[in-house]
């Protein structure tokens, strides 16, 4: 059976079509094809959030997963993120938690706080 869904790789938002033999059509670029196959076999999403900065009042710093995590584990990832905090200064790319849920994925800071 053909499956149809919107590609979320970029703002273009291509309408993808995948047939039962996993042939992808409707994609503008190769990333769309890869996304379509991943979406049907192991759907993943990047998770972004923010965590508390210990030594600053009323301020959070933004974080992301270093790679996309399996969709059904997003809530677990959010609980881990919500337990984290960091002290300033902190930098883009700084790892705050390594290898979450044994996914080989880290929680990484995405903002500079001086």
């Amino acid at each position, binding site marked *: 059976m053909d499956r149809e869904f919107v590609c979320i790789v*970029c*703002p273009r938002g291509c309408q993808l079509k995948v047939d039962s033999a996993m042939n992808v059509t409707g994609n503008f670029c190769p990333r769309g094809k890869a996304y379509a196959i991943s979406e049907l076999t192991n759907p993943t999403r990047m998770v972004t959030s923010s965590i508390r900065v210990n030594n600053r009042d009323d301020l959070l710093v*933004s974080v992301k997963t270093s790679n996309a995590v399996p969709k059904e584990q997003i809530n677990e990832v959010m609980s881990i993120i919500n337990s984290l905090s960091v002290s300033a200064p902190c930098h883009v790319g700084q790892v705050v938690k390594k290898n979450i849920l044994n996914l080989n994925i880290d929680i990484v800071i995405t903002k*500079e706080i001086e």
Partner: protein
Amino acid sequence: MERIDLVVIGGGSAGMAAAIEAHNRGVKNVLILEKDGNLGGILNQCIHNGFGLTEFKEELTGPEYLQRFVDQVKELHIPYELNAYVSSIDRNKVVTYSSKKKGLVKVQAKAIIIATGCYERNAGAIQIPGDRCAGIITAGTAQKYLNIHGYLCGKRIVILGSGDIGLIMARRLTLEGAKVICVSEIMPYSNGLNRNIAQCLNDFNIPLYLSRSVSNVKSKDGRLCKVTLSQVDEKFQFIKGTEMEIECDTLILSVGLIPYISLLEYIDCPTSTTKGAIVDQYLQTDIEGIFTCGNCLHVHDVVDFVTNEGREAGRGAALYIQGDKLNNKSILVKPGEGVNYVVPQKIALPINDDISFKFRVKKPIKDVNIVVKNGDNLISKIVKPVLIPSEMVMINVKKEKLMDNPQDITIYLENRNNG
């Protein structure tokens, strides 16, 4: 009074790109004035990813994207001042601003680039019927509370308007433990990008109601407690008998963005239907030496295009400062059938470069040609399978096609089924 070649008002994506471009073109005496405590503008609170695909060929979060430009500003030693609020500019390009360090300051600029972004339409702007109570806030405000300060604005939430910030906030609030009950959109189609409907609503089973809007809000003890959503007809009038009552504590509004141009309004700078200034291909306004770019010119959906537009303004300002007379005579650019607006709205002559036109369509439309005409002469026809209002369209026209006998330019849509 201190003399500065180029004052850039606004240190967000557009302003930083403009300042960097002007610097790289030899204008070293630049000053960026930013009212907030950080450079980067609205991207500071846009912590989700998806930025930078055009600019850097990778997917970045908002803060990561802005940091790349902050790094460049610092490496190039481009002067900037934070917590500096510009209260006025005049036609002679005197900029007055309040500085945390120096008090009230006046500087004389040779050129000014206005890159002040946009603001959100709020409850007053859309005249929501019912009680006036706490619990009704704009999506951008909810985003700032949550992402910068760590406050969740409510627990049971209805979102009105399907603009991108509303969709992004639906996901974000859900991940932080709030219940987003639904998103309601008055138009018969969504105003957000398709990918955001997919990854922000569908992923979390949040329903999107089209042709439906808020017909009443009720409060208890000063806080919102109930929202009524009703279906609307083609004229956006509520249809009796279609009411849906939803108990909630927060109504988030994502109902449109408007260019923030009060500085230009004070000096009577002519504006267009975008609610931004009228500009030529150098992004110069009708007032000589005053340029504008980014969301205060017209609201964008992709930051990479804002950056690019900032560069165009930086280039225009650099040419002007270095002595090019940019606006002698000009021709008009007019939106035709199906087109809401076109930027630039005029073209200064002579035409020395290829020109990129940016526009939005009035409503979603399939199988059309985008037609560009110079007077009555066809200069470009582009086939498009689908166009939607939430996606800005950009087309480039070669200068050779415009240079001979330039007349007023029209851009319109032509239905392909009717030949």
